[in-house]
């Protein structure tokens, strides 16, 4: 008996050793070694949009077939980009192409980014709106696509409720339509807003995106767009945020008390016509447009003076950076790949279809209806609300505190509970700024 046991143990040990030696570390999807000849450099793209992984793998394969240069695309699992980036950057075969998506990330990763000033890819850009620079002016990363967010609307349902899209011009008119639909929800068979869950998979719509209206108007009142994260904010437009947030959570399919742990599928609620309004962004177009072909997007109307001229929130967190520690051959190969992505008709078509719009001279035209709506607003002379939200300091911690405070407020919407939202929103900014820069 003892001998058998010893034998089994010895075998297990040997197997464990072999497994330890033989296994490759595969942190995420699609990390198989790519085909091609790496003698002239290779590309390793650490992607942070799981929904685009499939397309990127295809594009990578196309490039290797065309040029022979191996391209590996690894996609970090949703919400774990930072963790994956950190562990991958420490390896000998670190990513050559990665994402530095906002000013906070520039502080964190700027040292590892190649200066892209006057580079081949920078020359292809058709705007300088999507460039991230560090304190010394080094061009750390450049946008490869941009997006917009606001309130997605199903115009058919608005009409069914006896209203028109033209009615909605500002917060007052939005509120009137929303409250009317919510009041008659039983009779109409649909409600105003989809569920506004506050769990991790959905809370960013309110603590990240909707919060942008406060930062944007604060920025606008100060006269200039932020170029770096401010030490503190005033919260002067927090009442406007509150107005819109309250409107969403009180006139929706799900009672505000049930939002904390989530579990509702807002996208599905919108697609199946259970609600007419859906707070989200242009990346939803592919999912939404089939069921609601004429879905459109309206700005965050929140009661600010002159908001009739507001447009959508346009910006991006999709910024390419080249690893400055990669070999020169790899850097060059990566640069060539990037240029190919935005100039090759077929590749850029595929990428634009998954990303929305690529702000490059030769890239394919966008077919995204929400981005078309954004353009229409701009063409009509409305102002674009830029993504000031990208400056949120220590973003995960900041938003987590906001979620916790909003949960308490949703459970018991008193002024005292709103005060703590205010503290998390305004004082939390200063505290997290100090934590990052202190």
């Amino acid at each position, binding site marked *: 008996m003892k001998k058998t046991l010893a034998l089994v143990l010895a075998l297990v040990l040997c197997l464990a*050793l072999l497994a330890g030696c033989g296994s490759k570390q595969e942190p995420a999807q699609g990390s198989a070694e790519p085909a091609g000849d790496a003698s002239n450099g290779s590309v390793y793209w650490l992607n942070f949009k799981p929904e685009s992984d499939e397309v990127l793998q295809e594009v990578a394969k196309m490039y290797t077939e065309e040029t022979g240069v191996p391209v590996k695309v690894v996609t970090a699992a949703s919400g774990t980009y930072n963790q994956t980036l*950190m562990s991958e950057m420490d390896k000998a075969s670190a990513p050559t192409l990665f994402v530095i998506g906002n000013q906070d990330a520039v*502080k*964190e990763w700027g040292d590892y980014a190649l200066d892209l000033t006057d580079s081949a890819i920078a020359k292809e850009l058709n705007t300088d709106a999507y460039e991230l620079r560090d304190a010394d002016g080094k061009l750390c990363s450049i946008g490869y696509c941009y997006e917009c967010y606001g309130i997605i609307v199903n115009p058919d349902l608005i009409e069914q409720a006896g209203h028109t899209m033209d009615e909605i011009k500002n917060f007052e008119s939005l509120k009137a339509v929303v409250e009317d639909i919510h009041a008659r929800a039983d009779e109409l068979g649909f409600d105003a807003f989809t569920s506004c869950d506050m769990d991790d998979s959905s809370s960013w719509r309110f603590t990240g995106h909707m919060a942008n209206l406060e930062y944007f108007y604060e920025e606008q009142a100060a006269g200039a767009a932020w170029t770096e994260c401010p030490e503190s904010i005033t919260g002067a437009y927090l009442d406007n945020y509150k107005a819109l947030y309250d409107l969403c959570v009180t006139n929706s399919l799900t009672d505000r*008390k049930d939002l904390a742990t989530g579990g509702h599928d807002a996208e599905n609620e919108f697609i199946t016509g259970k609600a007419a309004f859906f707070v989200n962004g242009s990346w939803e177009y592919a999912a939404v447009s089939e069921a609601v072909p004429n879905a459109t997007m309206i700005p965050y109307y929140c009661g600010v003076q002159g908001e009739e001229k507001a447009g959508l929130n346009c910006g991006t967190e999709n910024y390419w950076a080249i690893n400055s520690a990669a070999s020169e051959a790899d850097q060059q190969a990566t640069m060539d790949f990037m240029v190919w992505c935005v100039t090759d008709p077929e590749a850029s078509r595929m990428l634009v279809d998954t990303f929305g719009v690529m702000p490059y001279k030769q890239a394919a035209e966008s077919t995204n209806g929400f981005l078309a709506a954004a353009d229409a607003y701009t063409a009509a002379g409305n102002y674009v609300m830029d993504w000031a939200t990208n400056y949120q300091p220590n973003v995960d*911690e900041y938003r987590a505190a906001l979620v*916790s405070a909003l*949960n308490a407020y949703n*459970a018991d919407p008193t002024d005292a509970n709103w005060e703590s939202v205010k503290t998390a929103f305004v004082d939390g900014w200063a505290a997290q700024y100090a934590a990052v820069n202190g």
Partner: protein
Amino acid sequence: MSRKTDNPNRVRKRDKHPAGQPLKRPMRKWSWLFLGPVTAAFIIGFVWPFIQGIYLSMCSFKLIRDAKFIGFGNYLTALKDATFVHAFWYTALFAVVSVILINVLAFAVAYALTQGIRGSNLYRTVFFMPNLIGGIVLGYIWSMIFDGILSRYGTSILMETRFGFWGLIILMCWQQIGYMMIIYIAGLQAVPDDMIEAARIDGATKWQTLWHITIPNVMPSITICTFLSLTNGFKLFDQNLALTGGQPFIIQPDGTNIKTTEMLALNIYNTFYSSNSASKGVAQSKAVIFFILVATLGLIQLAYTRKREVQQ
């Protein structure tokens, strides 16, 4: 194996090496071959990362290859961190309550299932099964169960610290009782029947038998179970992350916050992945403090319960 001694070869071999000494020499010569891979794996997989971890706790770093030695500053920052102190006391409270509840209940279940009830084996399997589910999944499942109940009262597990605390206790009891039960059953089955019988003949009541015969005899099981549940309690991470993720927070007037249900391991994780470039070293120093703490507590507990073990 056969214990026959009439094998001529075996006898001859014994004759050749009466003291067994000559056999040892070739064994020694080749010992490195057998020990080498295991030692190397142990050094690569444990000793080296451990030393590197201690070194990194005294460094400021973003990537490990760029680590810069800065001394004990990280430890000071870690000890001054109010969230870390809060997480420590919260974890300690959790560990104490969970150790008591898990062990008392697991022992009770094990005791009941060794009394010859019908279907004991089925019950043992059923009680053991929760162990086979991963922590993150368990956390999400239980958060749905708790919210299913709490939402009737217009609240949620994320709304109050005590809900989060007891929720996690219930979850851990549910998961661990079955595991500890198996260890206790093994211990209970090893208690000599004649001892129990002698006690019965001497007129001991069931309670006296349990207290003076059974429990002293299962002390080795108690030692191992308290050790496991104590260290598990301190090291708890995934269930904590999935069930409450530290919510609710206390938002302090200066804008900082304390995550009221955040335990030590989650606190270290959150510190490590915050955007502050200095935080990596601080998180690493917290991890070293954490290791010393868990190791010390574990050893004290082992020494304490070992003393109470009886030799059969």
